[in-house]
């Protein structure tokens, strides 16, 4: 049963109505209720995205550090293995077996494996040095690739962090816009005119709709 019917069709002059129809009040209640939920969800989502952004910024920084460490390690290992190998070969050619053995013992495992593989190749199929792509035991490429992948991961994480942060800021803006919904809804109680009330409730509902659509798009 409508509010207007309940009051026997008592209408104020010039279209004014002291008692708004029930559907208008219910609409207002629904709009404000949903607005409250959306405000809460928006705030929560914004916080979550902000957290993701911070997490990704941290991970990105960590990945950059990892990449730098790996790159430095690869550079150091590469320089070291070449220098040791040159000394080792020189010692062997001079017949200084004790010195050669000492240098060999200073090499890390992957360098020794690379040299052993190289030595085992028939002379005609032996690369110029052990540190060539054909040597499956040469580990430097994989280390450099790991460093590069870490750097790419950092870049992806940084990009994601920026996306999350931008979304978070947009959601905060939506939360601010939702106050318009509350304001218009609240103002509708101040007016006696049914038309004014309806206009304000409609405007409040429209603002809520816009916020809802924006929230879904930014989810």
């Amino acid at each position, binding site marked *: 049963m409508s509010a207007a019917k309940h009051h026997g069709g008592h209408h104020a002059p010039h279209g004014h109505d002291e008692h708004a129809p*029930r*559907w208008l009040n*219910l*609409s207002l209640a*629904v709009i404000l*209720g*949903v607005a409250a*939920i*959306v405000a809460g*969800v928006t705030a*929560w*989502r914004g916080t*979550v995205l902000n957290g*993701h952004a911070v997490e990704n910024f941290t991970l990105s920084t960590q990945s950059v550090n990892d990449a730098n460490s790996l790159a430095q390690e690869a550079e150091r290992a590469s320089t070291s293995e070449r220098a040791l190998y040159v000394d080792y070969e020189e010692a062997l050619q001079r017949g200084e077996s004790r010195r050669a053995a000492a240098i060999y013992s200073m090499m890390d495992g992957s360098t020794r494996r690379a040299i052993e593989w190289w030595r085992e190749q028939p002379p*005609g*199929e*032996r*690369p*110029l040095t052990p540190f*060539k*792509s*054909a*040597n*499956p035991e040469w580990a*430097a*490429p*994989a280390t*450099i*690739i*790991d460093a*590069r*992948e870490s750097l*790419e991961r950092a870049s992806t994480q940084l990009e*994601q962090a920026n996306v999350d942060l931008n979304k978070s800021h947009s959601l905060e803006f939506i939360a601010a816009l939702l106050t318009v919904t509350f304001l218009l809804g609240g103002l509708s109680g101040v007016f006696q005119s049914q038309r004014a009330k309806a206009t304000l409730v409609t405007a409040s509902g429209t603002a809520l709709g816009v916020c*809802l659509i924006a929230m*879904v798009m930014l*989810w």
Partner: protein
Amino acid sequence: MSARLLAGACLALAGAALVGTGCGSSSGGTATVRTTGADEAAVRDPAAATCSGKIAVMAPYTEGGSTDSVQMNWARVALDTFNGEHGTSFQIEPVDVMDDVADGIRGARRAIADPEVVGVVGPQTSVVTAAVGPLFDRAKMAYVSPSATRTDLGGGSLTGFYRVVANDSVQGPTLARFTADQLAAKKVALVQNPEPYSRGLADAVAAELDRRGVPVTRLTVPLRQADYGGTIRRIPRDADVVVMPFLLSQDGQRFARQMEDSGRDPQLVGGDALFVPTEFTKVGAYVSSYSPDLRKTPSGANIIRLYEAIFGDFSTFGGPAYTAMEVVATAALETCRDGRATRAGVWTAVPAVEMEDSLLGQRVAFGDDHELEGGRFFMYRVEPNGGYRAVG
């Protein structure tokens, strides 16, 4: 409108918001899944993640020459990158072969005898491919060449042969179209060597030029000729373009220099055999290549940086070896069982490998004729700084 309806709508909205909340929580971590079968297999079968096996690479690596090791380097970068991305432990098995057939046969037999070798990247040249192909076919060993372009290798006559580059039936028309359209040739001299690569390419160029109504004068010079004076004098004075599908880059360089010394200056166009930046340096000449300019492909820049970090210098000519290795490794992973790739598995899977994107800047998939779908050739101009610039 009834109050119940409004209340229902309100609840629905609230519910939708909560459902959205639940759905959204999973979007925190974004994952890009490539649609290659290999990735699916890796997801399906955790054992595949530790897959091992050897992939032979038939390419030169012992000479220390200008293009030595380039394909081996690219194949190695591809394999180590693949292992890093998929958690596999495939290993490279180098086979030092360029254009010597005896070396090729010896290397092929060695690869076939090693039960751990499951597939091959290579051979580099057409002549070796034709010689070792039947051996690999009998052993059911799939081989994916990054550079063997002779047309008659394809079509399925060699059952295990695939290539990630276009064949010479594409190269000939490409050279002819470039000559007729880009260089607006009025009359063309076509200077060829008396051997299959050069002759086949020259035939294809002549046929396409003839179809376009461009007059062609054909001349033949032997390989490694020291003095081209007689040949140059026989080139018509009004020929404004000389197409020279020579087999050897040194021959192309010598011919170009003697042409210049004789006071003749027509436009020079060479085939992919002249694509050797350290040896063919005639400024303003054009050469073709089966490889695009990797600096311009979407994933090229990143991989070039990686390549340079490992090997220092960079040559675009080796790029297809990267893609060939990706194909074989993908097939090996796709059919991995109990942590081991198998030769039979690679043999079965290579024809079905599809990569939506590749270093070559195009989709990689093979047709029933074992050829790369949509394969094409690219034209480059020799620049004053010694580099080659892509022009078409």
